[in-house]
């Protein structure tokens, strides 16, 4: 059987990507992690890429017990390393994304940031390239490979969602809402309590027997907000004070016993900066869905209508509350603990 011209072109193009990675990978560092319960291998071409992108997965590192279900090859073109065969598209503004899909291969390219993500879903093989490690924006260090994981997680019947998550081994909460609603502050405030930390911005969600799976052990806050959480260590990546630059913490570094990989989901909370005292007010499922779904669907491409349906089923299957955060940050974890006590184990 002969391959079509289109198949040959994609195969040759992938071969060009592999060639670029191989040229860069003279100082390869491999990390085996358990991500959303699956063995995943991260192949960093260099220590500089490892240093920028591996810390977020530190809580998931474990020896591989089985062949990886996903392998991601990660490199940059610092020095004289040839760039991979990049799409010929106009640069445009910083965040502009070009997306293409061809059979099992999905591609996203941000020419303004020079970030390139490719996933071959059938082969369980992904590639992530940037022009230079030191130019990676802070959010790529705190939440690496979001696009690749958004494409890959459905193969595990999971969704990547925009939300923070804290709880106990027997059950926890998902905090949802647009940026600035208090998700990160709430999640990082819980580090001083008995609650476990799973996410501050993105996590994997299994809606069948509702459960949250941690993807990253990072937390990020605007520097002014970070200053209000006195227990936090010095950030690993320091915000420069500008509006779009946040301080990034790797929770595993300072609270290794407070980070967890997953827990059953007991409730969805929509934090709201309101009230004098932290309290939970029951919320209609539709309002919770409004807090969860648009911010998730609009950030990750392509948006999947089935993911929207699954998020709707999720908010129907667990309790939902508006979480009025009150004035005292220290009261946030106790309010969540009280709620979990009331709800009991899953």
């Amino acid at each position, binding site marked *: 059987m002969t391959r079509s*011209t*289109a198949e040959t*072109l*994609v195969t040759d*193009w992938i071969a060009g990507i592999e060639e670029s990675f191989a040229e860069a990978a003279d100082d390869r560092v491999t990390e085996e992690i358990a991500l959303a319960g699956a063995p995943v291998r991260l192949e960093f071409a260099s220590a500089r890429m490892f240093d920028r992108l591996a810390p977020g997965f530190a809580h998931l590192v474990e020896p591989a017990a089985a062949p990886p279900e996903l392998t991601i090859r990660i490199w940059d073109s610092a020095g004289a390393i040839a760039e991979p*065969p990049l*799409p*010929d*598209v106009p640069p*445009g*503004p*910083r*965040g*502009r*994304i*070009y*997306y*293409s899909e*061809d059979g099992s*291969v999905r*591609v996203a390219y*941000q020419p303004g940031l020079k970030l390139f993500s490719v996933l071959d879903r059938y082969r369980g093989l992904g590639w992530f390239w940037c022009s230079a490690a030191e130019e990676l924006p802070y959010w790529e260090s705190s939440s690496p490979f979001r696009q690749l994981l958004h494409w890959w997680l459905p193969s595990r019947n999971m969704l990547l969602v925009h939300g923070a998550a804290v709880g106990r081994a027997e059950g926890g909460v998902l905090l949802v809402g*647009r940026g600035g609603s208090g998700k990160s502050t709430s999640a990082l405030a819980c580090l001083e309590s008995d609650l476990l930390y799973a996410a501050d911005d993105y996590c994997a969600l299994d809606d069948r027997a509702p459960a949250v799976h941690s993807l990253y052990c990072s937390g990020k806050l605007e520097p002014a907000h970070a200053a209000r959480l006195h227990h936090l260590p010095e950030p690993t990546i320091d915000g420069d004070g500008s509006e779009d630059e946040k301080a990034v913490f790797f929770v595993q570094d300072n609270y290794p016993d407070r980070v967890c990989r997953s827990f059953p989901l007991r409730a969805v909370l929509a934090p709201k900066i309101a009230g004098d005292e932290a309290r939970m007010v029951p919320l*209609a*499922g*539709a309002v919770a*869905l*409004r807090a969860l*779904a*648009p*911010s998730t*669907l*609009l*950030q990750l*491409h392509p*948006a999947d*209508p089935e993911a*929207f*349906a699954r*998020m*709707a089923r999720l*908010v*129907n299957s667990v309790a939902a509350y508006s979480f009025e955060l009150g004035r005292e940050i220290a009261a946030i974890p106790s309010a969540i603990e009280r709620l979990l006590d009331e709800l009991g184990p899953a």
Partner: protein
Amino acid sequence: MKVRVNAPHVIAETIGGETIIVHLSTGCYFNLGGPAVDIWEGVAAGEASAAITQRLLARYEAREAEIGAAVTRILSELEREELVVADNGGAPATDGAAAAPAPTAARAPFEEPSVNKFTDMQDIILLDPVHEVDARGWPHTDPANA
């Protein structure tokens, strides 16, 4: 008048008597409640405005003219927000009389339907606009130029 959902740019879910609609290209999202949910469900089912009016007449206590005017207004608003587009082709519109559900025993009071628009997530799309590359574009190279 017949319109259809502006897929794939628009996706929607109905939960607890409320429909949430997300426009993936503009970054706006919307909620519909009460009779507006019935109107959206009629659109999604491929019904023309006459059939949607009959659908509402079976459920709500109001004059046909009042409901018909509300249906026209909401469909126009949905079209203005590009949540629906005119459907001049495809399957024939479902005939209103034939499609009319049997009136429910106790019809609900008719409240003026409304479309609520939220723009607080729009900056996501404005900052990170997405461009689909068509099948002839990258990553393929045009064989003629290869």
